Every structure is written in C-alpha cells, then in structure tokens.
C-alpha cells in the first residue's frame, strides 16, 4: 500500500525536478540546430511577437519555458497574453475580423477552426513554407504530428494550425475504492455483478448510487460521480453534447450534416429518443454527484475529483496527470484509474468502424492570422513550437501529446505509469474519440442551444421538453444564419 502511493510521488518529483531545471537553465534541447535558427531569424531579431491563448497548463508552459528558449536562440521576443476562455475567442475574432494585427499568432481550439477557415482569418502554413523555403526549419515536419493535425487542414490538405495540445476526455475512477475487497464484496452482494469500471450507462449509474450511499453511511464527503453541469456556463453544454450524447449513439450534436437541421421531423437527431435518454441519464446522475456539480466547469470537475469528492467521473485528460501525481493539488495521488466511458449498445462497434465516436478529443493549435504584421518571424516561432525535440517535457508538464514520437519518451512513459495508463489509452484508443463537428457556426449554435440544457439541469424544463425546444431553436437559428434554409 505504502509503496504504491510512494511510487507516483517519486515519479512526480523526478519529472518536476527535471522540468524545473530545464526551465531554469533554458538549455536548448539536443537535436535543435541553433545555428540555423539564429541565422534564419537574423532579419527579424528584436521584433516582438504577440499571441493570445487560454491560460491552461500547456499555454503557460509556452509562455514560461518555450518563449524564453526561442528568444535566447533567435532574438525574437514572444509575448503571450493568457486570458480566460471566453475572452480569448472574443479578442482573437475581433482582431482578425477588423484586420488590426494585434496578434501575430492565436490559439485555435479545434472546435472554432471551421469558422476561422470559412472567414479566411488564417495563413495557409503549407503554402507559406513552400513559398519561403529559407524559413522552413530543419527538423520540422507536418508529418510528425498525430492525426489530430488533420483537423487543422482544409479540403486540399493544407495546414492552418500547428497543434500544441491534445487530450481526450476520459472516464476516471478511484482505484483505491474500486480495488478494495470489502467494498467490492458489498457491491457485488447488492447488484449481483463484480465491481469494475462501468461499461454501460446502467452500471455507471448503479456504481454512482452505490458509492453515494457508501459514503453517506461512512460519513465521508464523497459522492458517486462528477457531473460537469454548471447551469449557465457552456461547459455543461459541452459535456452533454461532446461526451455524453455520443455514447448514446447521437453524433454531431444531433445536427443532420446534409441539410443542417436538428429536429427529428427535419432529419436531425437533437431531440431523438436516444438524445432524450442521454439527457435524462446525465441529469439523473446529479442525484449522485457532489453539490458543487451544478456549479462545475471543467476545472471544478477536476478539482472535485482531486479533492476525493467523487468515486468516478468524466474528466478532461489535461487534468489526469496532475490529479494522479501532484500532491500539492490533489488528495487522490496514486489512486486514479482510467477507462473508456460507458457506452450504449453498438456505439463501440460504430466507432471502431469509423462511423461514430465515443467521446471528445480536445485540443488546439497555434495559427497565424492573415492580419499579422510579423508573419515571417511568427512562422519561425510556430515551427519552433512544432519541433519534436521540445515535446517530451511539455507533455510531462501539461499532459498533452501532439506527436506519436512523444509517447516513447521516458518522461511520458513515467507519467503513463503514474496515471495507470492514460497515455497508453490515448495512444491506442484515441482514434475512437473525435473533435467537435465541422461547423463554421459553432459558438453561434451553442449559444442558442445551451440555455435549454441549463434549464434541464435546473429542472425548469424536463429533459425531453428541453431537447424538443432546443432542436426547434437550432433549426431556426441555422436558417437565420443561412445554412440549409
């Protein structure tokens, strides 16, 4: 018992020491041709590149470690404005729309790329590098990336963003509870099958119920499951449409991609029986969730789990590493297991056949706005962020992986062990997950549909009624936006 707890701690300390020493010394990792970089950057030395990103662990690593490293090598300064999730979009969009040129690089979350492409906000990186071969860095290749880079390509295969983070939303559970023989026996006695990470929604619900009652009986501040159900913030919309509804076999938010319709009458599936069952199940889970669930965005869900207040839950993978390893933030270090989310019948087969997906593959890239005033220098910077040599420490510090080669580095293998296989799961079964559907109107539609989900959470609308009205509102909004009218 003791040893098992100590091991991840040791790994964490090692990894932390390693990254701290790297950050402090700002050594340029082996394999990078520093001479080429300083030479190529010579005409641009002294310029300052400005970018905007959400303040997440991967972005903070860029700001604190990669930017100084790049500056030391090239003399080009990099300033990264890390702001809130909402603000980031507003600011980037306003800048690019007005063509102001405030930002030389912007964070592009995978779900907004289609809107940016439709509006021609971004520089075609493939073309730019072909046109300016003197700026094409040795050691940088679009082919190094995982298939996640495909989300940032247009129909012809041109790349518009350099992936900088990617992770999947996984099913986390508490190994210390699930592996406890007494608990397992009690569970089996009550439900008639052995306690294990749920594979169906019914099992998931029963496990949640069991642990909620177990915690209440033992005076623990713990509940059966997390729910990312903040009622009023889009985080709840996202958990439902990107992580829950697909496990019931409804994809692309229930929008029919042929005619851009949401209602069942018009060929959509947003208010289909499966979607309604999904919302019913998801909202029903709140009974077995900690009281903060209805105030929880992605961060708070991770915090609840890290505080030991939930036995299982769907958690964004960017948090998996620190929950499992960082004792200054987490009380469940060493007792975190990962698994695929519970699924309805046939969904796994459909996903394996490439006809669906079982959850959310999240991530983002850095792109170069057309309005940038320092395009050449920014192009160098983006390639630097995409060098294989800098990936491993970044992955260990912020649990994000954008290149296959990163999986085999010692840093990531250590982290994989500490998280009981999160990285292995992502590597081997990541293909079952998918990013947001290719909507050029992503936030527009979300804002119209989300309030109905909020109302379902608050209980002012029944799940069925909420989805019926949401689908009707979606149809109206899409027609207004000129899609499939």
């Amino acid at each position, binding site marked *: 018992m003791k040893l098992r707890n100590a091991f991840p701690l040791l790994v964490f300390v090692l990894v932390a020491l390693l990254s701290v020493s790297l950050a402090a010394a700002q050594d340029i990792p082996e394999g990078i041709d520093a001479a080429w970089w300083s030479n190529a950057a010579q005409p641009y030395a002294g310029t300052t590149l400005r970018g905007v990103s959400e303040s997440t662990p991967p972005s903070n690593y860029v700001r604190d470690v990669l930017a100084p490293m790049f500056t030391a090598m090239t003399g080009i300064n990099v300033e990264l404005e890390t702001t809130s999730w909402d603000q980031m979009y507003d600011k980037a969009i306003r800048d690019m729309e007005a063509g102001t040129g405030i930002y030389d690089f912007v964070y592009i979350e995978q779900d907004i790329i289609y809107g940016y492409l439709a509006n021609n906000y971004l520089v075609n990186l493939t073309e730019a590098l072909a046109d300016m071969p003197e700026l094409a860095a040795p050691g940088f290749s679009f082919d190094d990336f995982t298939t996640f880079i495909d989300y940032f390509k247009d129909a012809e295969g041109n790349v518009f963003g350099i992936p900088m983070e990617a992770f999947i939303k996984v099913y986390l559970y508490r190994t210390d509870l699930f592996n406890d023989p007494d608990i397992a026996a009690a569970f089996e006695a009550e439900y008639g099958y052995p306690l294990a990470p749920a594979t169906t929604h019914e099992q998931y619900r029963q496990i949640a119920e069991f642990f909620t009652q177990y915690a209440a009986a033992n005076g623990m501040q713990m509940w059966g499951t997390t729910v990312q159900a903040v009622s009023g913030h889009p985080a709840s919309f996202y958990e439902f449409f990107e992580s829950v509804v697909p496990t019931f076999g409804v994809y692309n938010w229930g929008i029919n991609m042929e005619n851009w319709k949401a209602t069942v009458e018009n060929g959509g599936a947003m208010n289909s029986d499966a979607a309604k069952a999904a919302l019913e199940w998801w909202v029903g889970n709140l009974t077995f969730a900690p009281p903060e669930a209805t105030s929880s965005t992605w961060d*708070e869900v991770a915090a609840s789990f890290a505080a030991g207040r939930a036995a299982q839950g769907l958690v964004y993978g960017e948090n998996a590493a620190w929950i499992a390893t960082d004792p200054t933030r987490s009380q469940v270090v060493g007792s975190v297991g990962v698994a695929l989310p519970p699924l309805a019948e046939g969904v796994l087969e459909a996903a394996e056949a490439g006809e669906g997906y079982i959850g959310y593959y999240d991530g983002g890239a850095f792109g170069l706005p057309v309005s940038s005033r320092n395009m050449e220098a920014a192009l160098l910077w983006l390639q630097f962020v995409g060098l294989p040599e800098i990936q491993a420490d970044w992955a260990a510090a912020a649990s994000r992986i954008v290149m296959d080669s990163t999986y085999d580095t010692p840093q990531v293998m250590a982290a994989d062990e500490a998280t009981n296989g999160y990285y292995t799961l992502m590597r081997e079964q990541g293909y079952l997950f998918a990013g947001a559907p290719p909507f050029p109107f992503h936030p527009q539609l979300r804002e119209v549909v989300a309030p109905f989900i909020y109302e379902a959470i608050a209980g002012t609308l029944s799940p069925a009624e909420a989805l019926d009205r949401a689908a009707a509102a979606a149809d109206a909004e899409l027609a207004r936006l000129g899609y499939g009218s």
Partner: protein
Amino acid sequence: MRRTRQIIDYALTYGLWIVVAAITLLPVWWMIVVSARSRVELFNAPDLIIRSFYVQNYTDVINNRTFQGYMINSIIISTANAVLVTVLALMATYALSRYKLVGSDNIFFTTLTQRMAPPAAFLLPLFLLFTQLFAVGEGRSRWDLYDSHLGLILLYCVFNLPFAIWLLKGIIDAIPPELDEAAFVDGANTFHVITRIILPLAAPGLAVTLILSWIFAWNEYLFAATLTAFEARTITTGLAEFVTVTGTNWGAMAAVSTLTLIPSVIVVIFAQRYIIAGLTFGAVKD
C-alpha cells in the same frame, strides 16, 4: 423613566450597528480566510479562524511581474482619469451653472444617458474606434488608442463625467454668483475666478468627485478587459483571469482580490468625511 428609555435606545442602536457591521465584514473576512488556504485545504469545513496561513498565495502574486504591471497600470489610469474628470467637470459645471447656454438641461441629461447604456454592445464600436479611427502611423510604428492608458482614461470620462457634473452642480449653484461678479469687477478673468473663488469653496465636492472617479476607474472591468491586451491591462482584469483561468485556484484568487481591496480601504478610511459631505448631489440646499 427617560433615562431607561435612552439606555434601551442606545442598546438598540448598538445592536443594530453591530449586526450591520458583522454582515458587512463577514464576507470580506471569509475571502481573507480562503486566501490563506492552500489548494488541498480548500474543501475543509468552513472555519472562520485562520489556523495556518498559506503565504504562497500572496507571494506568488506579488512577485509576479505581470501582476505588478497590472497594479501600476491601474494606478496610472485611475489617477489620471480622476484628475482629468475633476478638472473637466469643474469647468463644465461652472459653465452650466453660470452661463445661459442653449439646451443646457438637455446636455445634462444626454451626458447621463451614457451611463445607462448596456455596456456589451458598445464594446464593438469602441474597439473599432480605438483601433481604426484614433490611430496614427502605419505598420510597426503605428500607434492607436487600443491597449493604451490614454484610451481607458478617455473612456472612463464617459462614465465619470456625467456623475461628476451632477455631483458638482448643486455645490457650485450654491456658491453665490455675487462673489464671481465682484471678482470680475476687480478685473479677474474666468480662469482666476474658477481657481481662486470657486475651487476653494467647492473643495469638498471636488474631493468627492476625485475619489469617486478614482474608485470607479480602479474597479471597472468589462471595458478594461476588452480594450487592452498587453500594455494597459488593469488589476480587475487580472482578477478575472485568476478566477476563470485557474478555475479552482480559489486561494490565489482570494489573495488577488484582497490585494485589490487594500487601496480602496485606505481611501475609505481617509476620505470618509468628504464622501459623506459630497453625496448630497445638490438635491438639498440650505
């Protein structure tokens, strides 16, 4: 009999004000309690006593260069704005009070409407205005109001000036115009009259204007968040970043919030007298 009544009266007043003070202070105190907690202690049961102080929440913030910059920006912007508003409001109010200007009543109400508009829709035109219209130069040497101290200083005038004029109107109206007439007869010009006669007499009102404008500028969030990026970000935007961004790092957020509070508390303690004196809005004259 009379004495007992007085004692009861006293007791009631004290009781009332102790309750009011407790209600006022407890939320603030709780914030300080949270600011003393580390991340793993957050979910501990509510406890109003601070048993251990996690200083790192504060030191992390204070030693953070970005945060120091935010603090300096906030000080520059709110001070410059408060001074500008007070000077302009004094001039404007004197004009409104002493001259018969066509449509001056409407001017007054129109200036007030600026404060009534829902802020969100005005962010877009202001952004365009700041980046496209109020811009000089081209390319790298281009300068515009966006992300500049001046931009926010001017913008806050829109909110502070109407309020300031309103506040000062009654005070300047109450200064007998015979005083300026006498000075004019003695050969003084308008500048002299305003600085030598009106200014000293309206000093308490001007102090309030200065303080209230300063506080508004210090506290404003939405416009500062939208119209700045790197150079002119203020402390409130920093606070919002701490909340939305680090999500669950409530301790650090509470620490930032507490730090933001300190200048305001100093202002309250030292300027209390003026604030009360100035809040008459000219509605009561004697």
